[in-house]
Structures are given as C-alpha cells and as structure tokens.
C-alpha cells in the first residue's frame, strides 16, 4: 500500500535495566555537577560529562569493541540517548562525533582512521564538526565549491565552509569537497575528507548567532595541504556517503526531544488538576509525542536491521521539529511568563530563561540538518512524485 509504515521494533532484553541504570546515573550526575537541563545543542559544552559518559560505555555503543565500542544494539543506544535528552543532560560536546562522524568513519574510514579516532570518540575525548554547508551552498548541498586537488603527496583544499557548529572546540571536521565534475546528476565528483582542526592550517572565524551565542563558525581553507590518507571512503563517493550520514543526523530522538524540558515545565506549572482548556493543550502535545516517539523508535529499529531509512528519517525530522516548536508556543500561551534572553536579567527564573532560549533557538530547529522544505521534497521523492 502507498505510504510509509513505522513498525514498532521489539526492544532487546535488558532494555528496562539499562534505562534504570541511565536514570540513576543522571540523577547522581545532576546532583553532583549541577548542570542546567537544556536541549542537546543548547546544553553546556562539557568535556568532563562526555568523558564520564564514555567511561560508562554510553558513547560509541554500537561500534565493535576493537575500536573502543561496546557492540550494543541501535535500540539500546536509542534508550540511552533518549534518557540523556529527556533529562537535558550536557551531551553537546561528543554529540556529532557519536551520532554521525564515528559511524561514518566506521563504515567508510581507513583502518588507521578507525583505530586512532574511534576509541577517542568512545572515551568522550574527541569531538567533530560537520563540514557541509558553504556560503553559496545551503539546502542545495550538491553545489559545494570547496575544491580538493591531488598533489604529489596528498590533497590541497581551497574554499569556505559555514555554519560549522563547534569548529572552534572540536578536533576534527569531515568536509565535503568537490574533486571532479558534477555530472548530469550533480551528485558525482564529491568526496569527504578528514580535517584536523588543530593541526591543519584552517582559519576558524566565529559567527555569533541571533541569541548572542558563539556556536557556529566560518572555516576558511586557503591552500590547506593534507596527507593522501585523509580521504574518507572512495574518491567521488561523497554524495552517497553524506546521504547516509544525513539519515543518521535526521532521525534521532533529538529531533523530538529538544524542548521536552519545556513540556515538563508546562505540566509542572499546570498542576495536578488543570482546567479543561489547559488539559486539552497538554493532551495535544502528549498525543503528538506518543506518535513521534513511536516513529523515531521505528527508525532506530530499521537502523538496527542495517537499513538506512532516509525518507522515514525526513518525516520524523519534519514533524518532530514542528512539534518541538509547538511545545514552546503552548507553554507561552498557557503559562503567562515572558521569555528572557542573554543579558535580560541575571536573576531571571529558570522557566523564563529556558523559554527565552527556546524562542531564540526555534528558528534553527527547522533549518539545521536540512530545512523542512528540503525534507518534504525528500518525502515527495519517496512517494514517487519527484
């Protein structure tokens, strides 16, 4: 039949015990470290939290043991990740490396790359930036112009990447570069490279976002010379590789849980017996979340089976990010608080500050990792009308 099914996966045995273990860890960590619950990318950059998590075995969970992984299933990873996100834990530092850069290296990287980098990611010590967008290449990723040219002993890279979150505090970037003609499909002639942000001569210039935060950067490559073995996978396979990477970037629980702390705050503010109109607003979010979590879990189940469900992931991100925005909108209508931003007030109560951070963060939810318009085009292609 036409359309997309999201069959619920059977959870592996021991999932409940694992979940309880993560909850106990988080309770203790929060009591000891005092982090401020926030969304995955709004949370504090905490190398110490990442290292603690690595020591627990909760980064690189699905990777082979010989690369520092723990050979757990994608569904067990899902349970750990959703518990971390629901608690608003400071997962930001290792997030990209654990979610997509590590799995990319595992699939396409050289043996040396796997051996030297994956164990450090899994230990919570090594962080990655995503080198996809450029000044003239946003949603139209196939139009990237950053060039990588072969030299006698490696590659020389020229071009500019933008909106590169955390380039200023990560060790590596995976950069999508043009290595040959685009061809009729426009998807040929692209390759991915491992860039050492500490050693390679990349200029990293901050771009302050509208919330006043330094999160993303402009990364300028001027005749940056890198060794031959930094090519990831096959020359010219960059589009195929990056598409797989994006499926991982788009389908996870972070696409439905970014504002869960506000949802909990709404419920807390409503009290035990909310009047019908407020109960209805909370119930609407509850039903939507129930459906979205089922969809997101189903995608994890497909990943576990070895599929890369690109279209299903696009559906989850399109609907999930709209839900996240609706949570913040519902909260501000239901509970009369005024959002407070950076510099608003040092004494701002946490709800005001959390709402302020979300209001200012929301425009990026439906942009990062593929705009919702691009996602709908991917869904349309999946329906065979594009």
């Amino acid at each position, binding site marked *: 039949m036409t359309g997309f099914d999201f069959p619920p996966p059977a959870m592996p045995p021991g999932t409940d015990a694992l979940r309880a273990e993560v909850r106990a860890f988080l309770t203790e960590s929060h009591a000891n470290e005092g982090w401020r619950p926030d969304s995955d990318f709004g949370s504090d950059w905490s190398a110490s939290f990442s290292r603690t998590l690595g020591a627990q075995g909760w980064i690189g969970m699905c990777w082979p043991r010989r690369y520092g992984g723990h050979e757990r299933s994608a569904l067990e990873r899902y349970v750990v990740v959703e518990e971390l996100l629901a608690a608003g834990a400071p997962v930001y530092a290792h997030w990209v490396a654990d979610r997509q850069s590590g799995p990319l290296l595992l699939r396409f990287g050289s043996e040396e790359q796997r051996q030297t980098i994956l164990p450090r990611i899994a230990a919570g010590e090594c962080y990655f930036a995503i080198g996809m967008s450029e000044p003239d290449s946003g949603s139209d990723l196939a139009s990237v112009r950053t060039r990588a040219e072969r030299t006698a002993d490696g590659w020389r890279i020229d071009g500019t990447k933008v909106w590169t979150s955390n380039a200023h505090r990560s060790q590596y970037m995976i950069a999508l570069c043009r290595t040959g003609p685009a061809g009729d499909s426009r998807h040929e002639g692209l390759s991915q490279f491992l860039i050492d942000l500490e050693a390679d001569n990349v200029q990293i210039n901050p771009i302050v976002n509208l919330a006043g935060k330094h999160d993303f950067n402009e990364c300028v490559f001027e005749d940056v010379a890198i060794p031959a073995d930094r090519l990831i996978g096959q020359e010219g396979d960059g589009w195929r590789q990056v598409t797989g990477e994006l499926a991982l970037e788009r389908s996870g629980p972070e696409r439905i849980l970014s504002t869960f702390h506000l949802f909990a705050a709404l419920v807390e503010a409503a009290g035990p017996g909310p009047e019908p109109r*407020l109960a209805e607003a909370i119930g609407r979010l509850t039903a939507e979340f129930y459906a979205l979590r089922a969809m997101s879990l189903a995608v994890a189940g497909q990943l576990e089976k070895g599929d890369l469900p690109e279209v299903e992931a696009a559906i989850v991100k399109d609907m999930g990010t709209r839900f996240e925005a609706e949570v913040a909108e519902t909260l501000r209508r239901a509970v009369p608080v005024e959002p407070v931003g950076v510099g608003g007030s040092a004494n701002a109560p946490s709800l005001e500050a959390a709402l302020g951070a979300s209001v200012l963060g929301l425009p990026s939810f439906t942009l990062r990792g593929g705009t919702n318009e691009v996602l709908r085009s991917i869904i349309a292609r999946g329906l065979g009308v594009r």
Partner: protein
Amino acid sequence: MSDETARLIEQTADDLFSAESEGARKALAEGAWPERLWQIFAETGLAQAALPEEAGGAGLAAGLAVLRAAGRHAAPIPVAETMIGTLLCHRAGAEVPDGPLTLYAPPAGALAAQPAVREDIDAANLPRVPWARIATVLAVGAPGHGLAFLKPSDVVEGANLAGEPRDDVAVSGPPDRLHPLPPEVDGFALMAIARAAQLRGAMEQVLAMSLRYAGDRVQFGRPLKRFQAIQHYLAEIAGEAAATGAAVDAAAQAPNGFGFAAAKARASQAAGTVARLAHQVHGAIGYTAEHDLHHWTKRLWAWRDECGNEAYWWQVLGAHAAQGGGAALWPKMVAASGSAVAETAGATVSSEGEGR
C-alpha cells in the same frame, strides 16, 4: 501471533474488502443491507481476528489490521462494531450471537448513571448507535455494570456524513441478558482504537488517490505532481497518515488506555488535514458526487468525531499527564509505549483498555 499469520489475515481482509466494497456501497445507498459482503466476512472468521489466540483469534493487532483494510476500502458493514462486540462478549464470558453486532459504549466520563445497562432499566434512548437497524445491540456501562444485550423497542434510522447507518434506539424493559465485565475493560476506548485503525486505512486510500490524480492531471503543461506546492501537500498527507499509523501500531503493541487515547486523538487530528489537502489536490472534480474521493473524505470527517474526537481524548490524556508533576511526565511517556522501567510501569491512564 506470527508475522506470517498477521500478513495472511490482513491480505484476506484486503482481498475481500477490495473486491466487494464498491458494490456494497451502492447497495447501501439504495437502502439495501450488503448481504453478500457480510456473508463472506462472516464465513472467513475475520470478525474473530481481535480475540486472543486461545479464543480462536490472532490478537488485537490482527484485528486492527482487518479494520485498516476495512477503512482502506470503505467497507460498508459494521466491521469495527462486530469485532469489538465479539471481543467484549469474550471478555464477559458471553456467547457471541450470530450476525452483525453493534455497541452502545458511552465515554468513561458519562458513565456515572448509565441506564442502558442497569437491570432495573425501564426506558432509555440511545443516540446514534451504528447499524442498530440490522445488528444485535450490546451496551457497556460503568465498570462493574457489565455487558448488556438490549431489546430495542424502536429504531429510528439515521446516518453519519458518509451515509453509514447511525440509528437512534429506544429501549424499554430490562436487557435480555447482563454479563459482568472485568472492570479494566473499557468498551469506549476499544471502539476508539478500532475507529483509529479505520481512519488510518482511509488516509492510505486518500493518499493513493491523491498521488494518482497528481500524476495524471496536467495543468500549465505539466502534471500536478511537478509543482512543488503539490509535492509538499502530498508529503504532508503522507506524514499525517504515517503518524496515525505509528500511533495505532504502538497502541496495538502495548495495548493500554493511554495508547488508545493517543492513537484516536492523533488519528482524528490527522483526518481533517488529510481530507482538506486531498481535496485541494483534486480540485473541482474531487468535489463531485461522481468522483470516488468523497467516499473516503466523508468517512474521515465522520469517524474523527465518533468514539471521541481529538479534543475529547486530548483532555483525557492531558488530565492524566498532569498528575504527578513535570518530573513524572517522561517516565509516564515511556511506560505508555510499553518500554518501561519496572517501577514506573504502573503509570497508565486511568481508563484502562484491553489488558495484554
């Protein structure tokens, strides 16, 4: 139930409803009972699909798959009512009567004084009972009040937007029989999940018709499907249908009142969007009686308000979610989907559905 059994049941239902529904709809529109479709449905045993395996069924998920197929082909017989009626008879230990069944199952909130199921009942008027003109009328009431086999004294025929029989039933005198029902069985919530499964099937059909039409219809020198605005409408229809399907599947995997409420709320919410966008894609031809689209969009508009609309179920869910404060919200969400840590597993919505 094995996956193979589930596929076989769904395929059987899909084949039957696909072959027989169009003719049956015409018969019904002319005032006739679709006897032939009903007979085959009864003979194949599909009405028993939702029963547990030890009772000769294949479980709730299989029943919902049959209902999905019934919605997909707009089968004009009381599939949901007979299936849930059969399930309630089983839970009440009552023998299942032959022929179609229907069910008067008011919402839990309206159960306080439900005259229909009291033994001392002398008169009651039950509004909009599906197919009462042809079916044995069952009624469920407040927990402990049981499952009643009613003796209607009068039936005034009516219909929903899609022309499906919704009759007003007058009852005088005590029920024929009254069987105790386990208190956790909520007939209203079971009918809600059944309607949600039908809504899901209808949305699939509407999506398929919209895709077909967008491919065939040429305007401004190109098929509609080449227009980005149309592509995004189709993507949104597919997304709404997928969210509905995911909620129904999750509720079937972990059957509880929370899941049934969430699935019906999500389905009812999606129905309006799906119908609106499908008509926008189809243009004027989809607004005619001649085109088939209305058989499904009218069902979407009718079914979204039956067995509790989205606002009703949102209130039920919201009242439940608000108990225990913000810290309890996440464990409650996880427990509802059946992937629970042991000590929070008790946190299900107060209106329990069918037990596992």
